[in-house]
């Protein structure tokens, strides 16, 4: 039964690096699982932690936030703020005893098509092992 499980991963991809990296993976015809729903954002720092929690509570099996490598942000320093907010959210997940593996922060540049494919493949495998998000069937959220 568990083998049939295809996770849904919400990906917040920064418009300048990670989204372009995803594009490159596509144009390079790299194979990776169709589990990720990309949402393009202008910068990874546009992602309020509340977006991530919303996706998670609405039943996303995982949420990926991806942006430019530190130092390469199109807006100079946006991704540094992302990292702090993400660390904060992750700590909250851990302290509340929620599965912090279901949220992930990765840096993928526009030239890293293969890395993008790899990240999605690895993360999908990991979430497959973890199983579906328990929030999916909850009514009293």
């Amino acid at each position, binding site marked *: 039964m568990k083998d049939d499980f295809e996770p849904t991963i919400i990906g917040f991809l920064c418009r300048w690096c990670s989204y372009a990296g995803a594009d490159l993976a596509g144009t390079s015809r790299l194979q990776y699982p169709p589990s990720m729903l990309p949402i393009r954002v202008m910068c990874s720092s546009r992602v309020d932690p509340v977006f991530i929690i919303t996706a998670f509570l609405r039943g996303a099996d995982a949420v990926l936030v991806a942006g430019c490598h530190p130092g390469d942000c199109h807006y100079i320093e946006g991704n*540094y703020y992302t990292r702090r907010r993400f660390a904060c959210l992750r700590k*909250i997940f851990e*302290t*509340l005893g929620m599965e912090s593996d279901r949220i992930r*922060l990765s840096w993928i540049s526009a030239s890293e098509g293969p890395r993008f494919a790899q990240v999605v493949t690895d993360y999908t495998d990991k979430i497959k092992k973890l199983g579906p998000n328990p929030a999916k069937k909850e009514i009293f959220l």
Partner: protein
Amino acid sequence: MSKVLRISKGAEQGVQELLKFLLESGKVKGVLTLTKINNSGAVDYSLITNSEMLKDTLPLFPLMPANAGKLLSRLTLKSALAEPIAVVVKPCELRAFIELVKREQGSLENFLFISSTCDGVYPLEISSNGEVAKKLSKYWDAVKKGDIAPDIRPTCSCCEHFLPYNADITIALIGENIDKECAVFLTTEKGKKSVEGMKGQLVEGELKTQEVKNLLNKREANKKKLFDDPALMQDGLSGLIETFGRCIGCHGCSRVCPICYCTLCTFDSKDYENEPSTYETELKKRGGMRVPPNTILYHIGRLTHIGISCVGCGMCTDVCPVDIPLSTIFLKVGGEVQQTFNYIPGKSVEEKVPLTIFEKEELTEVED
């Protein structure tokens, strides 16, 4: 060691005397402190300019009708004070105000901060009918002994920051002979200048006495007990649903929270409401959903927004109509977040809120 002015009067009277001196000598133009409301037994913060009205003040009363941090922010939101005023606040209220000032929601200018070593405050539910008055003798006994006072707010009973940061004047209460003497610690230059000319004995003293250290140990132990108590909240989503499931969505906790300052809170806005299509897709997935939705989202969302600055004042637990132990949860989770960034909210006004700054090389453990 710092300078202490010893006034040979009870602590409460001593502070009244101090306020009277400050007002009458013109060193401050006003005083903000807890004051009796008529004879109803209730107390509230009031601004006073007439020194005769000081007899109705209760500067050290163990109650927090509103977090004064929020009130000071409201006084100075539009512009800084033009005239100096003295405020008598609890240490966590001062910390909350400092956090608000960092968020440009107030100004420190022209404030003379008077605070005290604090043994906590009583929950608001016993604030009426003179119930606090019945407990006062036990409270002051605990203060004198340096014990955790009985029946105080849960977060007070585990508060480790009961020695005020940033106060100009600190009244020593914990472990002191408060019936006979009022020890006024002058912790800043401004504090020293403000009492120049006042009657009393100026000596050297130490605020961090053995009693204070002992109380800190007791509080630390109590904190561990409170946080590790399985009854507080079960781990994981099921625990969240159980604890926050009874939330009625009044948002009172954010209304009284001194850190929640947004007047257009996202959780009160239309953005927070579901589109009809969202209900439709959610129902397709689940076959049923709670109305109103997004309760858990609201609470975790608030944790991400203010957890970093939570001072654990306990206002949220007090106003919760369904008795969710909010402040204990927020202090526990917020405390972990604060530790990640090695941050003590309200300790220093120069230290920026960690989420507004960054280091180029850090936190690689959260990246994958």
